[in-house]
């Protein structure tokens, strides 16, 4: 990879403080937001998830002021977004949308360099940054730089959209259903690549989706929103799956939330039992999710499987019971709440 044109990557903390948006007189109108408060620490991904019309996109668009709040404050690194010049604010916030919104009349290279160009970077610096970012999102600059958006596949266009949003090294990225318009296989790949990218970039990201599975996969924190634009629950995915705060959240995350929780842990996290005879048993690499392991064990109909360590050496026995007990860690708490 090329040397970064902008070596220092910054991230900003984002705080919603009693944010409200009303449309007309109707209090519960579609897209309204009601007294929303939460904090996203710098460098983490916060996913806003909820049914359509719950105000999640409205909330996102209030951050870069495409929609102006009726009340409350949105703080970016402690300063109110309403107090800053709107153009300057938007240029330091990355923005990725479902339809991508690439400029059809500009080449991929110039699309990526749009914000640097607005900010008056030199041609050379724009070009260096463009090539760096295209490589970063897995598009070979020499092949893609001079193409037009209409010549790219949906997945490629979405990568360009991410590269474009990263161009000016923004401390905050807003992503509105960024992977919803591509097919499931491409979506999964884009999600995985983005998470890998985020491990290196550590941006603060506000991510909107209607898909619970995507929220669980992408989010360090999840804000579940319900009709009327109210925050139903806010916390890490593990907590939302283990302890839904209301019937609404429990229904929204689904009956299979136990299985979903299993997909948050891997074989490496699991306490194993001593390994006896291992002939004919399936083997699991450390990064296999417990959900996949359970599925394989149920299908294989064996007494267990072999957990391998990083070196590929057998570490111990994985059983259905062991996986079940990984879920059971918080059962007493749930019983106490009932």
């Amino acid at each position, binding site marked *: 990879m090329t040397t970064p044109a902008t070596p220092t990557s910054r991230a900003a903390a984002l705080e919603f403080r009693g944010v409200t948006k009303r449309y007309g007189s109707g209090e519960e109108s579609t897209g309204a937001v009601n007294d929303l408060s939460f904090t996203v620490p710098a460098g983490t991904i916060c996913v806003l998830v909820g049914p359509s019309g719950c105000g999640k996109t409205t909330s996102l668009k209030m951050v870069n002021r*495409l929609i102006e709040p009726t009340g409350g404050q949105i703080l970016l690194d402690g300063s109110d977004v309403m107090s800053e010049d709107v153009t300057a*604010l938007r240029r330091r916030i990355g*923005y990725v949308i479902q339809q*991508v919104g690439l400029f059809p009349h500009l080449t991929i290279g110039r699309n990526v360099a749009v914000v640097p160009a607005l900010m008056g970077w030199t041609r050379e610096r724009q070009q260096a940054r463009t090539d760096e970012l295209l490589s970063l999102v897995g598009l070979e600059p020499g092949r893609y730089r001079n193409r037009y958006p209409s*010549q790219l596949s949906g997945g490629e266009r979405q990568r360009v959209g991410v590269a474009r949003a990263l161009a000016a090294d923004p401390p905050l990225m807003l992503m509105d259903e960024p992977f919803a318009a591509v097919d499931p296989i491409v979506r999964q790949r884009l999600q995985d690549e983005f998470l890998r990218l985020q491990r290196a970039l550590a941006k603060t990201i506000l991510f909107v989706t209607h898909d619970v599975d995507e929220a669980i996969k992408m989010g360090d924190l999840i804000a579940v929103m319900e009709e009327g634009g109210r925050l139903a629950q806010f916390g890490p995915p593990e907590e939302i799956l283990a302890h839904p705060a209301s019937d609404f959240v429990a229904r929204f995350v689904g009956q299979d939330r136990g299985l979903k929780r299993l997909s948050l842990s891997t074989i490496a996290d699991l306490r194993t039992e001593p390994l006896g005879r291992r002939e004919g048993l399936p083997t699991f690499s450390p990064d296999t999710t417990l959900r996949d392991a359970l599925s394989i064990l149920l299908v294989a109909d064996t007494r267990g499987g072999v957990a391998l360590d990083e070196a590929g050496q057998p570490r111990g026995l994985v059983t259905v019971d062991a996986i079940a007990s990984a879920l059971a860690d918080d059962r007493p708490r749930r019983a106490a709440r009932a």
Partner: protein
Amino acid sequence: MNGEPLVRWDWLWAHLGPIADRIGQHLYLTAIAVGVGFVISFALAAVSIRRRRLYPPVVVVATALYTIPSFALFAALVAITGLSILTAEIPLVLYTFILFVPNIVAGFDAVPWDVLDAADGMGFTAGQRWWRVELPLALPLVVASLRLATVSTIGLVTVSAILGDRFGGLGYYILDGYHRTFTTEILVGGLLSIGLAVLADLGFVLLQRVLTPWAAARAVSR
């Protein structure tokens, strides 16, 4: 017809200079009509886009103007503006409105909303958005309307020959040939006028290619 050949080549060779002058006049009258018509139409389109309620009446009026026979309009204007260039240009300009306005409006309507949303979200000012995003994306239909109006006006300029031999461009030869029952003149006026229209058409196709290379790229691959 009294033994005359269809085309008197000797007449043609003897009049190359005047014919060139008439071609120049034809293009001059066309350019003024298309230029003025475009500027007024662009303003009408801009107002129509911003105030949508005004768009239907604008189209109704532009359509009504287009239905007035050109012959009658030239004749009627003589009473007001005399035998001036205004009399020749006013009808030509009025006829362009219906060719320009709906196409320009459609051009700006065709700019995808997600592109505008992205532009706003990335911090384009209103002016930057218009010049760098909206206008370039509306350009294919704007150029198409210029092409249409130019070809149409090249045809209509010939009618202004009824205002006298200071007008009409190549139409002068059509009218003069008709009065003198001189086929060569009619053919020269008619065919060269068609030739101009075809050349203008090709010119705008080329201009379109140069201005919107991205639109051609769309067809190439997906």
